[in-house]
């Protein structure tokens, strides 16, 4: 199925979870912020949150400089 990941179309497995999606794109930032259809998702929900066709996902690397 197709999701929109960081503004780009990405083909991923059906019923993929956010956790699996993070592993799929090899995103290794331990402080990664995830937004799912415009809503913030807490890390504890990554393994249970299942994505659907055309869902919009943003993987956000925190900006912590000053």
């Amino acid at each position, binding site marked *: 199925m197709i999701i929109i990941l960081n503004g780009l179309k990405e083909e991923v497995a059906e019923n993929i979870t956010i956790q699996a999606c993070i592993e799929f794109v090899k995103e290794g930032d*331990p*402080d990664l*912020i995830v937004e799912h259809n*415009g809503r*913030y998702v807490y890390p*504890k929900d990554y393994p249970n949150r299942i994505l659907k066709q055309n869902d919009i996902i943003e993987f956000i690397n*925190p*900006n912590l*400089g*000053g």
Partner: protein
Amino acid sequence: MNQIRYTRQTSIPQIGISGQKILANAKVLIAGAGGLGSISSYYLAAAGIGTLIVVDNDTVDFSNLNRQIIHSEADIGKPKAFSAAQSLEQLNSSIRIQPVNVEITDTTIAPLLKHVDVIVDACDNIKTRHVLNRASLKKGIPYVFGGVDGFNGMASTFIPGETPCFKCLFPNEERRQSTPGIIGPVAGIIGSLQAMEVIKLLLNIGKNLSHHLFRISGLDMRITNTPLERHLDCPACRGSFIKKEMSV
């Protein structure tokens, strides 16, 4: 108070003379006199915040000057807190500037927060931000977060007992972080937003960034404001909600 200096903001209905008096009686702590602190402290001094405490234990370096516009070439080698204070005093001699040249820790921050109304996070590392977060929750002081990296920046406002806290969003207290490149204008945008958040919080006007994470990607001009919800299991702020519920 010199009324002419503030005419262009006292003429705004939401501020007025009464609002200006509130700003004049306010006390704000700015943690960091780098890229973010340069901007937020300048605007807060210009707005007439009565007391600004500027905390930084670093010294001014040439590599700072692309974005830390409160400092200049003549300040190289000076402690940033004192360099910043000098610039702010030149901008507005009618307010009180308190430079503090110490590392921010759980021990050093506590005495600095007496009568402080808002904490501005203008620091450059996650460890200090967690110190600020703990202090904010302990003292019940709103905490205006900002961070920048490359062309990107983010900001939020954390209000103890009402909103998620910094640790809800960033649970890890350590982060392997190389010195990030930062383009000056993004520090300008986020620092300005932080100053505006402080003014609105002090005057209790408008909507602030509480319950939201503002983000800007300056390279492709994408701006988002993501709604945030409380993290019910957060070990840092759970107590502040319990305290608030008991006091209602």
